[in-house]
């Protein structure tokens, strides 16, 4: 039994079958990559996992509980954190304030009316946030306006915010898309470090094979909305079905 | 049965005004992505074009007629309008009589100009600003425009008569086989309704059959792609805005005989037109037209005494109630596309 079990998921948009009978099992404390050519349904699948879309049929179980019909914030509170393709952070707030928000979410749940206590007196939150920033090597940038961070730092901050909640499953949606090579390598290193030092499961959707092969322990190949193969990275490389699916993008 | 037909007819003229304003609002929102709170003011500018033309026609000069004397023994002064002086008595009388329809000829260039100035001078700079800023700056503009009109024309309603032929009511009931006077409908309202269908038809035909219209429709469906195609968006935005302004202005011109315009009618119409746009579906032109007529008719039914006796005051709130229900039950509106502005 994996921590995330997707069974028989179908999703249609009008005449387009975006997902057809997807089965997927992500084992606890592994890095599981989902790859596939453009339009394979990777993003649709991800959106079904986090509550943005509801599949037409099938089930999505996280740690034995169904996530279907729950809103994104409820699913997050269950222990799934999501990193977006373009970093989603609170651009108007400072880095420190950004980091405090997941700490509050972890401590107080999805809503708390703490309207008369001062943020600066929330010692536990400040400590937690500082700790999380130090983990990301960003403590010195804590007073910066987060909108003025570099792209790589924004990504770092976003991942740090997700980790501050101590999720059991971290979902990454093409975390290196549009990044320069150096930033990509930094992100890979960061993710490796997370994989090796934390009790966490990582599911990553990625286009860049370099990223996938440096991180993943299991790889699922998605094509036209259906999983083709699930294998270890070594076995994926020469797999005929995979070559076939990627024929149009042979350069990858 | 005749009562129902009468209420539908009564709803049509108001519905026409809603539809025309909402059409322009939707056009602007769909292509430019701007919420124009000054759109009601454009309607008012149109209405005051009609008032202005009427006044221009009555500008006169005085001459003395030595052959006649008034009761004090002085030579009588005769006022002659320039119109009469230039065109002769017959045509002048006709032009004065037909001043409202003639005002359309004046309103078209005026409104196009106003639209171009507004878009180039102000709206253009707000495409990249948040929606809240767009709302605020056009709201400010609406105040300014309406105050300017108030300065020149005062705060009181100004009567403008339709051409004599259209004064009075037509007995529609007789044509439909009811008793005489069962369905009496003012001629001018019928004219207004027909006029608005022509304008609406014109706008749709323009969008459907011209290359320009094709680009505008493509832009409404997917702004980014059209931008990528290397089409000169700026110029088209300006023209679209000018067209929307003209539609609102013409709606105002022809509406003057129905309700004598005041400087602030735009404010009231604007709120209702927003409701129409929301009910029709943000960004859907047919939706705006359909919802305009629908809400006009619903409003007219709600103001029947039979209805008001059961639900007092329902006529005052029915339009808003419908908007609330639509937004809660079907956020994209009657004809809005799925996924457009549903949040």
């Amino acid at each position, binding site marked *: 039994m994996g921590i995330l079990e997707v069974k028989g998921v179908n999703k249609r948009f009008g005449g387009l079958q975006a997902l057809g009978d997807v089965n997927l099992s992500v084992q606890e404390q592994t890095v599981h990559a989902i790859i596939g050519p453009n339009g394979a349904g990777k993003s649709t699948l991800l959106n079904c996992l986090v509550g943005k879309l509801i599949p037409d049929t099938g089930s999505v179980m996280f740690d034995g509980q169904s996530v279907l019909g729950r809103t994104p914030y409820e699913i997050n509170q269950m222990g799934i954190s999501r990193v977006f393709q373009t970093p*989603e952070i609170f651009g108007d707030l400072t880095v420190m304030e950004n980091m405090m928000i997941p700490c509050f979410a972890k401590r107080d749940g999805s809503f*708390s009316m703490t309207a008369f206590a001062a943020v600066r007196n929330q010692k536990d939150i400040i400590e937690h946030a500082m700790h999380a920033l130090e983990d990301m090597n960003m403590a010195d940038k804590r007073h910066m306006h987060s909108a003025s961070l570099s792209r790589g730092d924004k990504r770092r901050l976003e991942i740090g915010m997700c980790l501050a909640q101590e999720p059991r499953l971290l979902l990454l949606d093409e975390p290196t898309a549009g990044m320069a090579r150096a930033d990509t390598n930094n992100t890979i290193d960061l993710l490796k470090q997370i994989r090796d030092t934390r009790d966490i499961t990582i599911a990553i959707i990625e286009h860049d094979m370099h990223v996938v092969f440096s991180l993943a322990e299991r790889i699922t190949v998605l094509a036209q909305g259906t999983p083709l193969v699930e294998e270890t990275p070594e076995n994926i490389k020469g797999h005929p079905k995979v070559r076939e699916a990627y024929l149009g993008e042979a350069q990858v | 049965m005749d009562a129902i037909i009468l209420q539908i007819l009564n709803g049509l003229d108001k519905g026409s005004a809603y539809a025309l304003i909402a059409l322009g609002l939707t056009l602007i929102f769909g292509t430019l992505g701007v919420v124009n709170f000054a759109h009601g003011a454009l309607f008012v500018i149109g209405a005051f074009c009609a008032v202005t033309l009427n006044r221009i026609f009555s500008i006169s000069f005085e001459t003395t007629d030595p052959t006649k004397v008034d009761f004090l023994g002085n030579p009588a002064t005769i006022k002659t309008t320039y119109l009469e002086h230039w065109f002769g008595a017959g045509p002048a009388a006709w032009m004065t009589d037909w001043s409202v329809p003639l005002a359309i000829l004046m309103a078209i260039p005026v409104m196009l100009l106003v639209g171009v100035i507004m878009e180039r001078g102000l709206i253009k700079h707000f495409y990249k600003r948040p929606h809240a800023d767009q709302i605020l700056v056009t709201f400010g503009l609406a105040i300014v425009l309406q105050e300017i009109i108030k300065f020149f024309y005062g705060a009181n309603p100004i009567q403008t008569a339709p051409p004599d032929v259209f004064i009075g009511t037509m007995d529609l009931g007789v044509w439909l086989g009811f008793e005489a006077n069962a369905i009496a409908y003012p001629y001018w309202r019928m004219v207004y309704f027909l006029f608005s269908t022509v304008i609406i038809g014109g706008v749709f035909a323009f969008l459907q059959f011209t290359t320009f219209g094709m680009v505008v429709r493509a832009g409404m469906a997917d702004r980014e792609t059209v931008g990528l195609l290397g089409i000169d968006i700026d110029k088209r935005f300006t023209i679209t805005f000018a067209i929307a302004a003209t539609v609102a202005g013409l709606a105002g011109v022809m509406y003057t005989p129905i309700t004598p315009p005041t400087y602030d009618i735009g404010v009231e119409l604007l709120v209702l037109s927003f409701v129409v746009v929301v009910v029709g579906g943000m960004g859907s032109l047919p939706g705006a037209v359909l919802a305009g007529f629908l809400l006009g008719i619903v409003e007219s039914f709600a103001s029947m005494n039979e209805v008001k006796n059961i639900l007092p005051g329902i006529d005052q709130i029915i339009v808003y109630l419908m908007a*609330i229900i639509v*937004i809660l039950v079907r956020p994209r509106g009657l004809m809005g596309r799925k996924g457009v502005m549903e949040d």
Partner: protein
Amino acid sequence: MLGLEKKDFTLLLIVTVMVIFAPFVLNPFPEGTAMAQMFNAGYPDLMQRFAIFGILVIGFNILFGLTGYLSFGHAAFLGAGSYAAVWMFKLLGYDIIPAILLSIAVSGLFSLAVGYVSLRRSGIYFSILTLALAQMMFNMAYSVLGNPSSSYNLTNGETGLQVYNSDPQVLLSATDPNFPHLFGLSMRSETHLLVGNWDFTLNAGYYLSGLFLLLAFYISIRIFRSPFGLMLRAVKSNQQRLNYTGLNTRPYTLMAFVISGMYAGLAGGLLACMDPLAGAERMHWTASGEIVIMSILGGIGTLIGPILGAGFNEYFKNILSKINDSILHEWLSFLPDGFEDIMVTLIHPFVGKGWHLTLGLLFMMVIIFLPGGLVEGGQRIGKLFRRKKADTPSDETPVE
């Protein structure tokens, strides 16, 4: 102090001093002079408006400034508060405590209902929904609920709701003043301080409003600095990220909406305490627009902005509407005659009855060139001076 940082406490202190000494500071010109007639603002009626609209805009700023949700219907809560207060006067008597309590409660309930519906949407839809709901309330207050011949005449329609001798006023005792009062102290009672040629009016109603203003300001500082306030700013910044960080945005925005609605109710109640009548025009959506204008003029999302915006708006409205052609002629008399007339004709549309035009233009200018309002203007000027001194990197928090 009072659970505030030093910077915020200083700000509160400055505002407190301003409130206390406003009757003096705002009356800089001696009585009877032309300058006094034009520029003095230290009379009770106007100062009450400063304080009350300050409260209103402080509340509006908690919603719009922090969460970015632009409501075009807040005047409806102001009006509801006024009606509630006048009803308390009619039923119980002129004691203002029940009146103010009911105003806040009624507006709180109304804003809960309106907020519950309109916060299901965001952006433009939210603005239009609040606009539609408030306009619906206005229409009802004006017509259905205000029909004097019906049995549910809650608002008395066009005439406006006021207190009549025939009203029950069950708690009214013979010693009470025949005007809204606090423990027998009439809101109209005032002390005149005559210093030389100056006449300073200390009015009970003003100081009560000022006290509420300080309380409202203090609460707003606490909210700004609280975890709740941080969440509201996060809503404005990136709602999606907030949702995917396990936070439910709806109750946060709803609470902000209700709090700002209660502020509006308090302001409405106070308006009725200063002058015990309430009319539907207070609820019209253009009145809501004026609230928006005040908050933008001052500086949205800042602490002090709302007070500045409300004061600025009321003060200039007052001055502009007083200027007439003869005053203009007097001012411009140094110009050559013909030129003077031309100038008067040119300025004429912008003053007197045309003050709306001037404020509308000013409002547009602020949005176009100075989106942060007076506070941003002040900061820019401050920076100009500071830049000459040293080039220190700014390390300040975005919210002042």
